């Protein structure tokens, strides 16, 4: 199978990679770039675990073909903390007990990040809408909502 060359910027680092036409962004990140923080929960865009930011928008990376990410700027969970400091959302998830098995956590944090950056005036009902496409089986979402609220309200 012919491979395509593409260039993309992931977590502020430039990459040139060669991928099969059917390779998805999640597989590229995990298998080629070793960024296994992006978790694959379903592969069909139903659980949100593989959410990353692509050109500043939260996307299910299992629904994006790698070739579509040519020239894109991608942020994965590994790119969120800077200089050893956690992103406020990461810190709030830790402090509020919003993490259990942790498999949904990277996707939850990145979706919340996207929404908070675009909608700083969100109400609680809006955070819920923001993460309603991301499934979590451990927490019942209570502490996840609390963590997001904490950051949104700048506590």
């Amino acid at each position: 199978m012919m491979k395509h060359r593409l260039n993309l910027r992931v977590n502020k680092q430039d990459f040139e990679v060669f991928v099969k036409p059917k390779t998805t962004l999640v597989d590229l990140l995990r298998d080629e770039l070793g960024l296994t923080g992006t978790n694959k929960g379903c592969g069909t865009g139903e659980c949100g675990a593989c959410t990353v930011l692509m050109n500043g928008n939260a996307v299910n990376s299992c629904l994006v073909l790698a070739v579509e990410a040519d020239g894109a700027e991608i942020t994965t969970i590994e790119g969120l903390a800077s200089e050893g400091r956690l992103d406020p959302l990461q810190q709030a998830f830790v402090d509020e007990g919003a993490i259990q098995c942790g498999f949904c956590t990277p996707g939850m944090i990145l979706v919340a990040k996207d929404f908070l950056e675009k909608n700083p005036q969100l109400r609680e009902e809006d955070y819920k809408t923001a993460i309603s496409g991301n499934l979590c089986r451990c927490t019942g979402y209570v502490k996840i909502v609390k963590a997001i609220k904490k950051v949104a309200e700048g506590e």
Partner: protein
Amino acid sequence: MSDKKKYTNIGRSVPKLDAVEKATGKAVYPQDTNLPGMLYGKILWSKHPHAEILKVDTTEAQKLPGVKAVITAKDMPPTKLGFAQDNPPLKGDKVRSLRDEVAAVAAVDEDTAEKALEMIKVKYKPLPPVFDPEEAMKEGAPQIHAEAKGNRNKLHYAFEYGDVDAARAASDVVVKHRFKLPWVKHCCLAPYSCVARWDESGKLTMYSPTQIPFLYQRDLANILQMPSSKIRVIQPTIGGAFGSKLDLYPNEVICAVLAKKAGQPVLLTYTREEEFKCTPSRQPVIADIEMGAKKDGTLTFRDVFFILDNGAYTSWGATIPYVLMNSVTSLYKCQNIRFDTAIIYTNNMYSGAMRGYGNPQGTFVVERMMDILAEKLGLDALELRLKNCNQPNEVTPQGFKVTTCGLRECLETVAQRLDWKNKRNKGQKETGTLRRGVGLASYIHVGGGARVYRSDGCGAIVKVDDFGHVTLITGSTEIGTGTETVLAQITAEELGVHAEDVTVVNDDSAIKPWDVGIHASRTTFIAGNAAREAAAKVKAEILKTASELLEEPENKLEINDRKVYPKKNPEKTLEIGKVIRKAHFRQHGQAFMAEAFYDPPTEMEDEDYRGNISVTYGFGTQGAEVEVDTETGQVRVLKMVIANDVGRAINPMLLEAQLEGGLSMGVGYALLEKLVVEKGEVLNPSFLDYKMPTVKDMPPVEIVLIETDDPGGPYGAKGIAESGTIPTAAAIGNAVANALGLHLFELPMQPEVVLKAVKAKLAKRD
């Protein structure tokens, strides 16, 4: 609590020790493993629910470039898996369900492995299948296992206490109903994944999300016919368990055999569709239940018969009556009990353990019937429960010795928070097609371990290094619930350090001492007691040395905040690290470490299912307020209240998190979740079609922790991890009945079920 001491670590909401790794994407789940030369495994599933296998031809698949191993039943030892030893990891002569493993492939990538599966030719001779357990029980039904006459599993659970027939005759009111509960799924967010690697000396390392590393090691050794000393089990970060990893399943055996044949490591990860179709589910049940009472509300008897769809093979699903029985015999006082089961093989997928292990089913049936009984008696449903409420120091018909019991307080707390008096009895205002109601339900569950194996023990090793850093090596497993953090808190409290000073090692069978597994809400209690005991031994050694250095008797010393000091002279402190260095770096120096193995003072149930299997029992009540739309059948949960007897909250935040997560699973069970299984096939194997709760389905929750300070628990704690799920569906079911003035006898209460019942009631009225 009057004796509430000042603790440094107990009662503190310490963030999970592994949370930062998880928040930054650094945690390594089995599917993240990348070993040199690692291959990708895939399983070929059966095309028929019931058929003879005439021929499996793998010639073409083996020739495909990139394929490194193809295996069939011929490559397997003749041993079988499961509690009843009826499940060959690869099926050779016969398939009994659509999730039966027929062959498997390891290849350089997943695409090649999938292509190779398509090239395997299997010739089947279809046999007549049977999917309904009641059909399967009938004479002349297709026989699924030759040795199981009438498709009856040889496991049979029957219990009798008192005189049910006399009690029935003496009852003023008797109610009888049939309930049907569905297949539901764990829905772990991480699909099942494991890795097998053999080294040159013939040792096998499994990277597995198992909840039972040591039983797993033993079972895997048995099936592979090799010594268990040659198997090492490493547990990477586990992306959800909830009972789904409580057994050794064929996929892990297949992974090991593929890796051996290929001579390279193999990663075998399920797709989400496989996760839905091929992993064991919560057991569906049909329950015929009859209950009676005297006019004053005294419970007289319970007579229950459960039919369980076992599916094609026996995993832990077949043993859930063991726990199902608890709610029937021991939830509220009732002195005459008959409990019987039929566990029936069908050509459906097989069932397994899931959070609560039969108790959600049993509690649903018993607690729905308590409301129906109250209605018939003309009594308030809360009063009926309070009248028959479990009490401290009671012995239940099964011989459970209740020690602490906060059930009365739980019931009263929930009723008060629901505004029960006004909302339940006076009825609520009707708004158009909307009807509101409140309901509650309680549970009893093991809270101090569960002696379901001959050992219910757990080992712990505690060491303190020259700088006062503590390592706890525990036999127990972290599945996301926060046990390692809670164990660090217990260890730290005993040693007078901070939880953050403790490193917990819990992921390698070659290092950690034995533990039966993470199940039955037992880890805080059992592993907690083990850790505390080991820490206390080290503490005694530290105090001995400090006593020499400070020239004070040991019993006059205090250890706290990483320091040792005389109680009367707290200024004269010595850092723990300094005490240790003094004792270490000298002639005949010593190291500071100790081990403990805690096996609780309990007994296995005898053949009549009597015995005190747990040191203590957990109790709790959940209340629900719902709004039902009689036009659409939609049930909206407006509010849930949980009051739980937790013994002592070691970490209130993580404890609440368990209850909240458990409750969301219970809400799914009540209203949303059902695997649609037709002719043995799962028709909704995706998150799109199988509806587990999203954030929008989660109602507001109020939690009240009732601390009864259990004398057997570490710092008074009881186990609670399953309890959030157990009474939820019953509480919501009772609230729906209260709202509509009618009873539903099945789950989930999806709109079509509700609507059908509403229409039937209207038709009756006309």
